[in-house]
């Protein structure tokens, strides 16, 4: 039985998007960019926090698909599969 990908994020983001707290975020499988757009549809403005105006990952944000760090930070083409989890971290480098 298929299961849609899940998105898990640093609780820091719940401060700005409280409606995401305490809920399981599931979205259709797709590229990282598509998954983030789905989260943005749930919580408008979300992508402005993790991406810059060109759709690239902000410098001090890290993503991983399960335990694999996302290396394509500019176009975010890595696929988040069914059963996969996209993790959104804040880098320690961000202060």
């Amino acid at each position, binding site marked *: 039985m298929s299961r849609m990908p899940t998105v898990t994020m640093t609780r*820091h*983001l719940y401060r*700005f998007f409280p409606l995401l707290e305490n809920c399981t975020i599931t979205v259709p499988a797709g590229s990282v960019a598509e998954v983030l757009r789905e989260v943005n549809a749930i919580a408008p*403005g979300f992508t*402005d*926090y*993790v991406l*810059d*105006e*060109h759709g*690239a990952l*902000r*410098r*001090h*944000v890290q993503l991983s698909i399960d335990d694999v760090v996302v290396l394509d930070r500019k176009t975010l083409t890595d696929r988040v599969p069914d059963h996969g989890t996209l993790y959104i971290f*804040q*880098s320690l480098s*961000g*202060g």
Partner: protein
Amino acid sequence: MANMILLGTRKGTVIFDRANGAWRPRPIAHAGIPVCYAARDPRDGTLWSSLDHGHWGPKLSRSRDGGASWDDVLSLKYPQGARYIVKVLPTPDFDPAAPTGKPEYAPATVYKIWNLAFGSAGQPGRLYAGTIPGGLFASDDGGDSWELNRPLWNHESRGGDLFAGDATSENRWMGTPASIDYGVFEPGIHSIIVDPRDPDHIHVAVSTAGVIETTDGGRSWHSRSRGMTNDYSPDPEAEWCHDPHFVTACAGQPDHLWQQNHCGVFYSDDGAQHWRKVSVLEAGVHFGFPVAADAQDGRTAWVVPARSDMARMAIGGSLFVARTSDGGQSWQAFTNGLPQDNAYDIVLRHGLDVAGDTLCFGSTTGNVYLSEDRGESWHCLGNNFPPVYSVRFG
């Protein structure tokens, strides 16, 4: 008389209210988030804070209910195709041949919204924002949407129209150390002065480029750095590469402009057509970041001097404010109420403001001082604030 002071601090926005003759701070807003600039729009009372999130990118925050609630303003973005010529920091592995061979371009992204300015009373909704990496933005709807000023962005001093293709001229703008936290070395617009007599007449100041003026509402821009000197440069009087730390003007006599520059204090009484250095080294007036101009008398201004660009702290452990009332020919130092021993404060470029006879400044050591007699005596509003980036009366 102003009844509000807004502080932009390392840990949020602090608002003081004046009631019954006393200034009292509210609980901090934007707690934990760096705020590099905060100000009140005098036209409609809207409060603005420029958030400098470490992780989540720069954001404007707007309050239309006097600070009771704040909303994100996410619309200030560089348009697709906006590029700049990358400035390469001269690190130990810097290859001097590489950047001269072929310019490196980068898509522009907002690193920092360094300051805000408000249009004239006849331009409701007009706002300006100065950014790193050097773009000036304007809004005509109270900040709901913003547009990059392309004539300044595409100026020949920055390489020309990089939307259209590669550079057609040399990029003469340099970076500001304030950009290094973002992993780049790019310029920033930190001062925007709208002429109260003519809203199409605007000066901006750029670290590091100089003072630039438009008289046609931003359709064309011209360098206005004549008389400024770059003491450390091979050509101290070059047209570009000046480092004005902050520029302001007398509201009642807008042709009188004041500038605290990396290389001294400068003054112009002809609308920035010519500047002259008015540092008085023996009075300690030379290096620093902020300057405030009297609203009525263009010859009167205040600075908070610091010890040299190499040290960047109070001179001799003694904090003082200097005032001139003769266009910088002489300066009077005021120490009453300010610490005279073991003070290491530095006041940043937006960290001093004046409203009538009242002045306020805040330092990066979290000290905030207020004067109600034109800077002659001071009392402390608190010693334990976060590092202060901006002080503005509301």
